[in-house]
């Protein structure tokens, strides 16, 4: 086995937490069950990894097998990557999409290889007719760098592809082209949507985040939702009860009853001219627009925004610039003067 491959496997296995070790190795399915049982999983991690790498060497693990392990590790730790979303489109009046997964994979790889000799492409089928693609980029003269791969997740017959953040921006056009052509689309555009939470991104663009449907034939009283903690203690009178109920109602109308998809930030780039009533002020004469960047960060941005008005920190309804995020599928905004 190639030394670089052995090193790569070793470093990948070292990343795996001990609690997940067995699960991931079983998912990899490269080392058979009986061999795994001969290994002592209670020893120190470094020694365990050495034993496992030895077994892999004996079985002549290839770069392909190592890449597959890397895909599986990333599938288990998808939050460690930041994911972008690309949207593809077809010409109107196109024929029905007869997507063939094997054709897609071979077409995708062919397009990359035609342009770049040194590239490692690996595939792993996933549930819901999706595929995870791992691409390690090289250059004309250098072998692919296995430690900085790009991952692409594509659900067949959908217009969206999710890619992990790539430092090498120069390869993005090639990747976009490969995706578009292989999946029978014509155009591809990068959406202004980015997050660590791949499943939330999927929920947003596939419009799966609101799956509550009212199927009652009688009118359901809203009052039961609005009761809050009004009846905690009868000795307490809420003077602003009406306003509180209004805020609660508006919040529910905007955000719904469902768990919000998870995003970590929303970013607004403003480019506006200074507007002032005072003529002759320093800024009033400025021809160039002012630029500023506003970033909202949170472990769970949309839930945080949802709780702003009920907590009394903001007025309800919130600005549509904040509430449109899942609907528009954007968390990057550029606001200019009209």
């Amino acid at each position: 086995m190639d030394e670089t491959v052995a090193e790569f496997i070793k470093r990948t296995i070292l990343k795996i937490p001990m609690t997940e070790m067995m699960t991931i190795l079983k998912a990899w399915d490269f080392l058979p069950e009986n061999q795994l049982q001969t290994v002592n999983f209670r020893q120190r991690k470094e020694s365990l990894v050495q034993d496992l790498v030895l077994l892999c060497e004996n079985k002549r693990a290839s770069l392909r097998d190592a890449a597959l392990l890397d895909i599986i590790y990333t599938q288990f730790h998808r939050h460690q990557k930041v994911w972008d979303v690309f949207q593809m489109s077809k010409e109107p009046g196109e024929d029905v999409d007869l997507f063939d997964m094997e054709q897609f994979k071979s077409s995708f790889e062919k397009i990359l290889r035609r342009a770049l000799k040194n590239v490692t492409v690996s595939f792993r089928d996933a549930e819901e007719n999706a595929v995870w693609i791992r691409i390690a980029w090289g250059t004309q003269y250098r072998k692919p760098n296995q430690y900085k791969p790009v991952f692409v997740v594509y659900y067949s017959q959908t217009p969206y592809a999710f890619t992990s953040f790539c430092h090498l921006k120069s390869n993005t056009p090639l990747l976009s082209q490969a995706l578009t052509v292989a999946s029978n689309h014509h155009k591809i555009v990068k959406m202004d949507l980015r997050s660590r939470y791949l499943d939330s991104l999927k929920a947003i663009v596939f419009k799966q985040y609101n799956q509550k449907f009212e199927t009652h034939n009688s009118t359901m009283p809203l009052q039961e939702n609005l009761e809050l903690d009004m009846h905690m203690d009868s000795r307490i009178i809420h003077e602003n009860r009406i306003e509180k109920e209004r805020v609660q109602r508006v919040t529910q109308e905007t955000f719904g009853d469902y768990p919000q998809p998870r995003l970590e930030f929303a970013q607004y780039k403003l480019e506006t001219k200074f507007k002032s009533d005072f003529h002759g002020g320093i800024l009033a004469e400025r021809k160039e627009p002012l630029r500023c960047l506003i970033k909202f960060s949170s472990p769970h941005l949309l839930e945080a925004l949802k709780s702003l008005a009920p907590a009394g920190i903001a007025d309800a309804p919130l600005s549509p610039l904040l509430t449109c995020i899942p609907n528009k599928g954007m968390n990057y905004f550029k606001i200019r003067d009209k």
Partner: protein
Amino acid sequence: MEWANDKSKGGVLAHLERLETQMSRSCKNLEDPPRETAESDLGTKIRKLRCLRDKLRAEVKQRQARIKASTANAEPDQTLEISEQEAVGGKEENMKAILQAYRFTGINLFASGLSGKRTSRGVCVCISTAFEGNLLDSYFVDLVIQKPLRIHHHSVPVFIPLEEISAKYLQTNIQHFLFCLCEYLNAYAGRKYQADQLQRDFAAFLAGPLQRNSLCNLLSFTYKVEPQSRSFPFCARLLYKDLTTTLPTDVTITYQGTDASSTSWEEQRASHENLFFTKPLHQVFTSFARNGER
């Protein structure tokens, strides 16, 4: 003293007399009926008035709401009565019959609009899919009754061309929109059911996994027809170019066995092609299994 000479006969004293008799007479009238009936009379009067007031209030509400609904729905669809006000207004029987007809085709309509929105009335459509008498998944489309009609949220899978169908029919013919969507969803559910059945019940006949895609409109697999046989001589590729059908539009069976010269293989291959064209996938394999048992 002019008023002493006024029109009433007898002058002042006579007038005073008259007032006195009036007074005594009215006193008598008051004392005659018992006090309880007077009160109960008033009580019933009050109750009647209250009843009337409530009736009038309800009528005012109804009329207001009807006006609201009719202005929001400038082009009421003749065949599809959606608003609740119409039901209240006495057209309930008509609506029930229409909803019943829809229910038979797998479309259920619910009056919603209470997902937090009091301002716009909504309708939640539930499309139930079925294949060969088996009830499969249900899909929901929540519509907002506004001008223009729009979809609030839905549970239709992303690979079903919902945008296309709604762009074509939603604003002009909601009935057609629902039936068209129903067609696509039922066909998809039927194809998915066949593929799932094949994978689950006839895995022994397949070499390797069934190749499929999200819409289940391209299926590719390698199979055998004799359960005991060790080789998988046939390769099948089924294309469903019409997304509203559950049977393939293109079938390609290739024989990849070693005995290429024998004509019986060619006959089998041709007959398989015909089978896949005409029968659902899992039924084809059921017949293979049955023939294999003989």
